[in-house]
C-alpha cells in the first residue's frame, strides 16, 4: 500500500480507532497516543493482511493496544497495592508471636477448602470457568486455553487476577469470622 493509499485508510478509520481507544482508556491524550500506535502497527502489517474487510482488523489492533495499556496500568496498581499489603502483613507477623494459635489456623485452612471451592464456583465470568479448570480440575494453562478458545496469555492473566480476587475474599472472610 502506498503512502497516499494509507493516508486515505487513516482518514477512513481514524474516528473508529480513536473512539475505541477513548472508550477503553477514557483519557484524551492516551487515546491519541494509542490511535497513533494502532495506525503505525497497521502500516507495518497491512501488506500481509489477507482479508478484504479492514474494519474488524483495525478495530482489533486498537483493542489490543488499549488492552496492553490497561494491563500494564493494572499491574502497576496491583504491584503498588501488594507492596503496601506486604508491609502490613510483615508487621502483623512480627506482632503475632503466640505459637499456640498455629494448629487452630491449620484446622481452619483445612475446613475452609470447601469454602474456597464454593468461592471459585461463585466467581463471575471471565474467571469462573478458568478457575474451575485450573484449581478444581487441575488442568494446565495450555489445556485451558484450548478448551475455552482463549489465548494462553489471556488465561494466565485471568488466573492471576482471579487469585487476587480469591485472596481478597478469603481475607475478608477470615476477618469477618475473627471475634
Amino acid at each position: 500500500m502506498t503512502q497516499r493509499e494509507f493516508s486515505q485508510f487513516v482518514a477512513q478509520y481514524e474516528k473508529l480507532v480513536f473512539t475505541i481507544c477513548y472508550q477503553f482508556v477514557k483519557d484524551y491524550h492516551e487515546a491519541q497516543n494509542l490511535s497513533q500506535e494502532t495506525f503505525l502497527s497497521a502500516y507495518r502489517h497491512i501488506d500481509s493482511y489477507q482479508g478484504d474487510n479492514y474494519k474488524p482488523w483495525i478495530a482489533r489492533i486498537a483493542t489490543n493496544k488499549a488492552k496492553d495499556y490497561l494491563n500494564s496500568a493494572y499491574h502497576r496498581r496491583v504491584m503498588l497495592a501488594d507492596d503496601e499489603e506486604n508491609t502490613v502483613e510483615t508487621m502483623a507477623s512480627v506482632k503475632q508471636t503466640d505459637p499456640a494459635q498455629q494448629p487452630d489456623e491449620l484446622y481452619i485452612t483445612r475446613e475452609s477448602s470447601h469454602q474456597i471451592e464454593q468461592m471459585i464456583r461463585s466467581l463471575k465470568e471471565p474467571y469462573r470457568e478458568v478457575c474451575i479448570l485450573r484449581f478444581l480440575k487441575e488442568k494446565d494453562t495450555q489445556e485451558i486455553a484450548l478448551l475455552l478458545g482463549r489465548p494462553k496469555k489471556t488465561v494466565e492473566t485471568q488466573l492471576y487476577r482471579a487469585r487476587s480476587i480469591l485472596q481478597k475474599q478469603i481475607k475478608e472472610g477470615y476477618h469477618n469470622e475473627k471475634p
Partner: protein
Amino acid sequence: MKSHDFSPETWELFDSDGHLTEEAFTLLIREQLDKLQSLEVSEHLSYCDRCLERYTDLLCAEPASALPELPDPLQAVSPPLLEPPCELHTNIMNQIQHRNRVFYFKKGTSLALAASLTLVLWSGGIFSSTRLQERVQDLLGGLNYSSQTILEHTSEISENIDDFFSALQSRWKHRITSNHAPQEGNR
C-alpha cells in the same frame, strides 16, 4: 433483552458462554466501565470475533439504531463516533514518512558501503592478483595434463585392440592353410 434496574454496577458483563452481554456493550460505549472491567472487556475483544463484530456494528451504526434497551430512552441511542484531534492524521503520516526515510537511509547506506568496499578491493587489485592468476593457471595446467594422459591411454588401448584382432586374424588364416595342405597331399 432483559429489563433492568438502572444500576449498571449489578449488570453482568459476560454471559454463561463467556461472551459479552448487551449490557457490557452499553456500558463500554457509554464509558461507564471501571478500569478492571475495561481490561476484562478489552481482553475478550482481543480474541473474540463475534463480540468484536457486534461492538464495531454498534459503533458504526446509524444513530437511529439503538443500543440495548434501557430504562432511560434518552440514553438508548448509540452515540456517534468521536472526533479525533485534528493533528492525529498529520502526526501519523509524519511518523510514517520519518520511518520510511530512516529505512531507506539505512538501506542506501549499506548499499553504498558495499559498493565502495567493492571498488576499494577492485582498485587494490585483489581480483587481478598474480597469485590468483597462478592458481588459475595451475588448475588449467592440471586439467591439460589429465586430458593428455587420458588421450594417451585411449590410443594405447585402441592399439592393443588392433594388435589383438590382427593376431587373431593371422592365426585364423594359418589354421585354414594348414587344414587344406594334407588334403592336397592325399590326392
